[in-house]
């Protein structure tokens, strides 16, 4: 990194350190809206030409349209900052901001490649967001998303309009299904073909009670209050700001110039052009009436964003009760059906999470000549995840306690053989202590665990294992690698 870049990063770091939590919250909203604006303009430049492209870009970057929020928040932050230099420093520090960056949540390993091609109907569904695909080892899982299916059908004109909050869709939102394929099965060993032979399991999941859904009726009053007060105030202010960009000659001149700059910019330069134009906007003198509206808008938006964050946090700490059915297709031995009850809630004022499961597994068929119970096993398990607090530049450590008790009512089948392994029925108890160490901002987590078990599925001897791993959030990693 050269010295100029280093100075810019350091200066912006200092400015950000000085920034109050309020400014950080407003900055985040601006960053998100700005990223959406940039992505949309790039989309118009790559999908439209000539006057159609120009009209679309003007529409997008205009106080009349979807982008007044970006302009207004830019002015809010400009008026909150001592100098324009600080604003440019913050903008400069965002050189690595990726337009349209996906959420950075999620953990676990994923494979970059799929063995073989995805069958066309599944591929079409994945491509249109109706289902999502993930891979772990040789198992590929497709999750059916009822709302995603609805949106895909709507985008392709199969349904005229939809809402995910009608009584029917509220019911559908509680459901999910997935199908897993083991690529080692079937005739095309190691290649994904998507045929019935490769299906290894089917899962259906239903939420009985989900207080982690922000639209649960429990939060309706909170939303009404939020929308009826601070957000209403912000909406009125924004409405009143629109015409200043037509009536004030300085602002109008800036708008026309900014639109022309965006129309002529190459797609690769849209991000820098938008950021430069917003930097210019932040330096302009504002009419007194508009300045007052901007200040009020900033206060209203801050109150709205803070209260919304609190509401979403309350929802994230809500409790869930759900049921799950899994049909596990075995090779050479009877298929298994597992019925599971899942409950999760938070404690320690929402800082920690606890989850409990109770399940029963049955044999779908009883093999002839074997004296077996229909009921194969029952399991009870619980897990508590407790954040230990932040360490600067590392992140939040998480301590996990988990335990599982399983009662095997008959001897177990050896995998892929259809043969019973003698002397394997009985009780199994497993305890695990895990510490997850994050590397902040990299998408890398290092889980270290110790597992104690009185036996395994097939061997009746106590087992103590220490595990060490590394998990990657590839979206975050790739976002760091891109220049």
């Amino acid at each position: 990194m050269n010295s100029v870049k280093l100075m810019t990063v350091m200066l912006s770091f200092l400015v950000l350190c000085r920034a109050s939590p309020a400014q950080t919250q407003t900055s985040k909203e601006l960053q998100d809206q700005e990223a959406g604006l940039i992505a949309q303009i790039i989309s118009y430049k790559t999908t439209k030409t000539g006057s159609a492209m120009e009209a679309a870009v003007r529409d997008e970057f205009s106080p009349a349209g979807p982008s007044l929020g970006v302009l207004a928040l830019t002015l809010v932050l400009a008026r909150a900052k001592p100098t324009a230099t600080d604003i440019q420093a913050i903008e400069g520090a965002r050189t690595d901001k990726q337009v349209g960056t996906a959420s950075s949540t999620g953990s676990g390993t994923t494979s970059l490649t799929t063995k073989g091609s995805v069958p066309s109907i599944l591929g079409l569904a994945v491509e249109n967001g109706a289902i999502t695909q993930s891979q772990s080892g040789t198992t590929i899982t497709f999750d059916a998303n009822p709302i995603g299916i609805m949106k895909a059908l709507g985008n392709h004109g199969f349904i005229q309009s939809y809402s995910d909050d009608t009584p029917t869709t509220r019911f559908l939102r509680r459901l999910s299904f997935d199908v897993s394929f083991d690529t080692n099965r079937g005739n095309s060993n190691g290649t994904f073909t998507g045929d019935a032979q490769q299906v290894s399991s089917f899962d259906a999941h239903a939420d009985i009670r989900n207080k982690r859904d922000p639209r649960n009726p429990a939060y309706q009053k909170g939303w009404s209050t939020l929308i009826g007060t601070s957000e209403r105030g912000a909406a009125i202010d924004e409405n009143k700001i629109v015409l200043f960009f037509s009536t004030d000659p300085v602002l109008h001149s800036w708008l026309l110039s900014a639109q022309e700059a965006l129309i002529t910019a190459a797609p690769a330069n849209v991000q820098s052009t938008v950021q430069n134009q917003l930097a210019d906007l932040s330096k302009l003198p504002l009419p007194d009436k508009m300045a007052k509206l901007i200040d009020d808008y900033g206060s209203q938006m801050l109150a709205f964003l803070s209260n919304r964050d609190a509401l979403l946090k309350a929802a994230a700490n809500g409790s869930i009760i759900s049921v799950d059915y899994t049909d596990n297709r075995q090779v050479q031995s009877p298929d298994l059906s597992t019925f599971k009850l899942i409950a999760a809630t938070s404690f320690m004022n929402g800082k920690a999470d606890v989850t409990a499961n109770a399940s029963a597994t049955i044999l779908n068929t009883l093999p002839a000549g074997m004296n077996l119970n229909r009921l194969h096993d029952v399991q009870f398990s619980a897990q508590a995840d407790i954040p230990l607090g932040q360490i600067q530049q590392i992140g939040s450590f998480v301590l996990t306690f988990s335990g599982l008790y399983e009662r095997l009512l008959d001897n177990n089948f050896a995998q892929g053989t259809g043969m019973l392994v003698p002397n394997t029925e009985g009780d199994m108890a497993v305890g695990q202590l895990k510490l997850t160490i994050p590397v902040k901002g990299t998408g890398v987590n290092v889980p270290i665990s110790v597992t104690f078990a009185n036996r395994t599925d097939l061997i009746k001897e106590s087992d103590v294992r220490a595990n060490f791993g590394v998990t990657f959030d590839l979206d975050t990693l790739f976002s760091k690698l891109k220049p």
Partner: protein
Amino acid sequence: MKKIAGSNFNLQVSDGETISVQISNTIKIVNQVIYVFNGSDPVLSTSQPYTRTLHKTGTDADPDPSVLSARVTFSDASGGHFRISVSGKAGEDTSVYDYDQAGSQASEQLNYILSFS
């Protein structure tokens, strides 16, 4: 109602015309939309269209241009979507715009400038 120079947000309206705004194709949206017309507002559910009859002249004349805004709140941290449609006289233009929540964006306001013919 006609789009000016193909714009979805700069619209030409007539004296006495009733315009209608409808939010549809909603995903992860709070079921309350804020509508503001020249600085005043009701709050309606997403399933109920907003309508207003515009007046160029008379004691209840509306400013020219007028500004109509519709503000939608996203209920989740990501994945929100909606469509907004604005229409007037039958047989004339309809403005249709689809919006996807950007990152963890909290809310989105669409503003329309209405100019009388």
